[in-house]
């Protein structure tokens, strides 16, 4: 299956933001937006749902902390009790720093791994760019042309309002996109 897309080029961050917002409000489907750097507010303009990564971070941090407390208790109080300075074997304050470190390690590393897994990033993944210019000074907005809502005349008029500099129409096969 193939799909038709309209690839539009912009010079300024504000223009691409405004165009994205305006097109989405008119019911058009935004395939993706490419920018040379992270543009603040773009996620809201595109209407992306909030990421679920914070939950991975939170739960695995909690798991890491719990495992570490159990491990420290097991090593110093159960399996091989060691008397340190006459303190009780299960001295919680002494466990806190290491527990904290392991919590951060679990939360941090697992979040990165989860991110790679969800976005299918890996050493073999090839970069898919709408156009090499996006690595330079251009912002690119890719619009899907669906028959029901797509009216070329209106879309072009709207894009001109946001100082679009170039528009290309493309037909892509599904494999190329993903």
């Amino acid at each position, binding site marked *: 299956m193939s799909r038709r897309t309209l690839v539009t080029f912009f010079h300024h961050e504000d223009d691409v933001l405004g165009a994205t917002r305006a097109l989405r409000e008119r019911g058009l489907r935004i395939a993706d937006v490419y920018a040379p750097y992270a543009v*603040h*507010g773009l996620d809201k303009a595109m209407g992306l749902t*909030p990421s679920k990564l*914070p939950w991975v971070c*939170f739960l695995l941090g909690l798991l890491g902390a719990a495992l570490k407390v159990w491990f420290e208790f097991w090593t110093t109080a159960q399996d091989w009790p060691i008397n340190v*300075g006459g303190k009780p074997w299960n001295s919680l*304050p*002494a466990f*806190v*720093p290491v527990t904290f470190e392991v919590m951060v390690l679990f939360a941090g590393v697992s979040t990165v791994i989860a991110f790679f897994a969800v976005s299918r990033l890996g050493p073999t993944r090839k970069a898919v760019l709408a156009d090499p210019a996006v690595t330079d000074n251009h912002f690119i907005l890719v619009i899907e042309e669906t028959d029901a809502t797509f009216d070329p005349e209106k879309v072009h008029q709207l894009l001109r309002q946001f100082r679009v500099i170039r528009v290309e129409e493309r037909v892509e096969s599904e494999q190329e996109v993903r």
Partner: protein
Amino acid sequence: MAGMGVVTLAAGALMSPDRAWANLLLASFYLLGLGLAGMVFVAIHYVTGAGWPTAFRRVPEAMSGVLPIVALTFLLVLIVSPQLYPWFGATHHEANGSAWFRELWLSPAFFIARSLLYLFVWTGLSYAIIRHSRRQDEDGDVSHTRKNARLSAGFLVAFGVTFWLASFDWIMSLEPHWYSTVFGVYHFAGLFLSGLAMITIVAIWLERMGPLRSVLTEEHLHDLGKLLFAFSTFWMYIWFCQFMLIWYANIPEESVYFVQRLEGFWEPLFLLNLLLNWAVPFLVLLHVPAKRSPKLLLTVCWVILVGRWVDLYLMIFPPLVGETPAFGIWEVGVMVGAAGLFFLSLFRGLRQARAVPVRDPYLEESLSYHN
């Protein structure tokens, strides 16, 4: 409210002098924290060239208006009731000669001279910074921002040294034989946390009452929420640094401080301190929508402000009242009076200048700010 505080203080001074004056010391230090935190907040943003807080910068600026009042109340404590400090006027000499520095440092004349110097430096620099900020409203000169960046850098350095020493002088020397080198940092964490809470509360109020309507947005609240979250955790971190080292080493001279605070009715208060200053803000503000909700932020901020009182109470009162915590009319009255004085000076400061620094070069950035 301020009047009530004065009446309570006067009555307390006659009927229960030690507690009344200790309360005034607590209240002075509490207000000092709020006033200085306001100035530190402003100074940090001038130095780093941050634009986002410009829209509500008049709030922390107005908060520092309480500093001259703090100077008066603190001097009142020193003049009327220096016996709060056990070393004041004490002439005992320790057998070994190693305490000469401590004796010199804690001699009444040097102590008062230092206190005056701190108060003078803070009041003077904050006055200079605020004057430039307000003048910019009239002439729109960008050089005010540059001058303020330089003044703020000076203020931050001076603040770092003087506040660190002041926390040693005014609070730690209540128990002259106990010492903790992290005490100054610990106090900075408490100061900035309570200051941020107050800035957030007043900013939300002003947004609701009108002056900051459609100026203060969710984006500003989000960043204030992030700062509250970070400094709450920082406070906990420094608290634990102090506690763990003393707990681990277990040297009687040092651990006596915590032993006293972990016995009897002090223990629930000791744990309540951690709950109010860290556990509640941490768990509530962890979630992003909570940082953007004015209602939740207000609640958390009040919790933090109560927590700051408990924190200071735990530092000042145990050596004074002994085994059971004392809480009653003197504590409530003096704190109500302090709150009255604070809000009087705050609203006076807010009325003196425009609610928004209209000609600040960073205002545009602040108004259209988003995370």
